[in-house]
């Protein structure tokens, strides 16, 4: 009697344990994955494919992708949902949103997740990891990443008597090349030498110039900036001089959105823009073009950009485990290589560039490797606490410089003061 009773109790006690795996097989762990892309675009098909493939390889897990539009929409959506207790378990958001996400207390560090070992997290390009780590923890895993490169019109180079195989390598060369490339009739210019867009992502472009002039615009903790550093001022002056002194860059602010079109229309011979434009330029430029690393000032340099993968606090232990599995699946060298080839984003690990597939692609289209070759010179994209606000302070300062209202030193000092005021409470 006693024995049977104990057996019965034992069976009762163990039954949930026994039932659990069975249950799990029946109802797979589901994770919602927010992805920052306008719905219906070509990238959605790639992501849909990844989710399906992952589901096949891991029958216990289902990943549901939700396409959330622009990066701006996506962070808004994620924060709103998190406040309403309805957060996704995983999302791809701007690497620069890291501090915002930490301050809002909605994400978990990858180090604390089961299955995310150090070897994996160290397998990415260090240039990308700069935007993923703060306070000794890793908050984001690089995925949809980009950087700034220079595109140039090889025909225009030939016409101007320049060698289309050698793009400018220094700031001085950039100016002298641009002078040769600027076509002027009297007052009007039919082709400018160079364009660095000053709307939309002015801070990003400026960060490239500042990095090349050997100054870091913020610290690792994201609570201090150095906008007013003399070297930063020098960088802004260089940008301004392109239009005012050397007259090789259109005056005022150049639109981010119309810059590629200006390039296709031969209104400009060299442009700085994101590597994310590679496919666009490849498809639409009606002339042979080259892609080059940004020229060096005191050194070479460019900020990285783009999106990281974050895991949200709302994820249950099982979902966290699944999220790590999925992130590792996405960043496998083979897949990362294919992703880079399909989309023009930079594959995130050196191993991806060592795959035969990638090697073959780069051999046929060397432009694809330029971003990678620039990565050793790359730094983290400008990102601080209250990132949007600090960025806006800098952006306003840059626009006031480029429109000729304020001198670089005064404008950047003002931006630095604004940033100080905003960041003081985070120290």
């Amino acid at each position, binding site marked *: 009697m006693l024995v049977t009773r104990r057996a019965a109790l034992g069976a009762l006690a163990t039954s949930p344990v026994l039932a659990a795996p069975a249950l799990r097989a029946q109802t797979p762990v589901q994770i919602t994955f927010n992805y920052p892309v306008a719905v219906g675009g070509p990238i959605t098909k790639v992501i849909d494919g990844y989710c399906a493939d992952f589901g096949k390889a891991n029958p216990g897990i289902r990943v549901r992708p939700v396409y959330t539009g622009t990066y*701006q929409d996506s962070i*808004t959506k994620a*924060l709103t949902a998190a406040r309403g207790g309805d957060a996704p378990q995983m999302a791809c958001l701007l690497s620069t949103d890291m501090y915002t996400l930490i*301050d*809002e*207390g909605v994400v978990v560090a990858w180090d604390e997740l089961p299955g995310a070992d150090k070897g994996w997290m160290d397998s990415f390009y260090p240039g990308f990891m700069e935007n993923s780590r703060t306070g000794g923890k890793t908050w984001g895993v690089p995925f949809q990443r980009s950087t700034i490169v220079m595109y140039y019109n090889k025909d225009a180079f030939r016409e101007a008597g320049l060698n289309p195989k050698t793009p400018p390598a220094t700031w001085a060369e950039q100016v002298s090349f641009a002078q040769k490339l600027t076509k002027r009739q009297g*007052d*009007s*210019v039919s082709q400018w030498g160079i364009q660095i867009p*000053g*709307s*939309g992502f002015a801070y990003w472009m400026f960060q490239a110039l500042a990095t090349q002039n050997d100054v870091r615009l913020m610290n690792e903790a994201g609570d201090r900036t150095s906008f007013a550093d003399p070297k930063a001022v020098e960088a802004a002056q260089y940008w301004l001089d392109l239009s005012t002194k050397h007259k090789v860059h*259109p*005056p*005022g*602010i*150049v*639109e981010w*959105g*119309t810059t590629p*079109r*200006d390039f296709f*229309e031969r*209104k400009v011979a060299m442009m700085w823009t994101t590597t994310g434009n590679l496919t666009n330029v490849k498809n639409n430029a009606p002339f042979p073009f080259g892609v080059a690393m940004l020229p060096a000032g005191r050194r070479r340099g460019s900020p990285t950009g783009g999106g990281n993968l974050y895991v949200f606090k709302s994820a249950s232990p099982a979902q966290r485990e699944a999220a790590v599995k999925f992130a590792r699946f996405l960043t496998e060298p083979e897949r990362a290589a294919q992703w880079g080839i399909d989309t023009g984003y930079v594959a995130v690990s050196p191993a991806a560039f060592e795959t035969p597939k990638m090697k073959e692609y780069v051999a046929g289209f060397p432009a694809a490797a330029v971003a990678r070759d620039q990565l050793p010179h790359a730094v983290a994209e400008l990102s601080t606490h*209250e990132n*949007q*606000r600090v960025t*806006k302070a800098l*952006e*306003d300062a840059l*626009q*006031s410089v*480029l*429109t000729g*209202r304020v001198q670089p030193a005064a404008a950047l000092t003002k931006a630095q003061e604004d940033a100080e005021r905003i960041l003081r409470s985070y120290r």
Partner: protein
Amino acid sequence: MRGRATLHAWLMLGPAMVLLVAFTHYPVVATFWHSLFSTPRGARPARFVGLENYDVLAADPIFWQALTNNLIYALGTVPLSIALALVMALWVNGRIAGKAALRVAYFTPTVLPMIAVANLWLFFYTPDYGLVDRLTQLLLGWGATNWLGSRETALGAMMVVAVWKEAGFFMIFYLAALQAIPPVLYEAAAVEGASRWEVFRRVTLPLLGPTTLFIAVNALINGFRLVDHIIVMTRGGPDNATALLLTYIYEVGFRFWDTSQASALTMVLLLLLMLIALAQFTFLGRRTHYR
């Protein structure tokens, strides 16, 4: 019987009043209330800060710029769109060939979503190969102008888009008013041998008074409300040259997530509108046709 009628009246008014209060009156009060607190962030809850948010505003040069810009924007677009609307209405009501086609042409901007046309205007304003520059090149021999990229022209360019969007809509109101003027009046004026200008000044214009007032109020509100194209085309730039109160509210509230600051900003906007309403009520109240 009397009581039942009152009950009916309340039942009929009820739904509209509840929603009005919930989405107009309550938010005004709540905006003021929230503007007295700090924005809660992560672990830090909101705390009472009195008028600190307003102090911050007063010390914020972007706010002052947005306010100035907005006044220029309103004072520029209102008279211009009214005048154009009147001219358009007179034309399509007059003797010009192809009136029906003109009417459709003037009205199209009203039907097109601003958000979509803003991108087309972006092309028009593109330096050098944009349509505006091509025209100025052809007609005036000007060089390339960076309409959206320089402080001097950006706000003006935005105002042109706003006038373009609004004038045709206001035209419809004027047209309806013109067509309601009894022909007898014109015939009488013709008998007296009045010139066209005199007829316009003595007969038409006075009769259009209430319409003009109605349109003016609408145009003025739009002067603070119509910002879609700015959000798409310049995002308030360059260097805040096209920042208006509402674009700044959007930016502070939904990009910086500083809702308290945005509430203080909203209060300023509401205050401005209340002043306008008051001015309209005291100066023009007697002449309105609201009964």
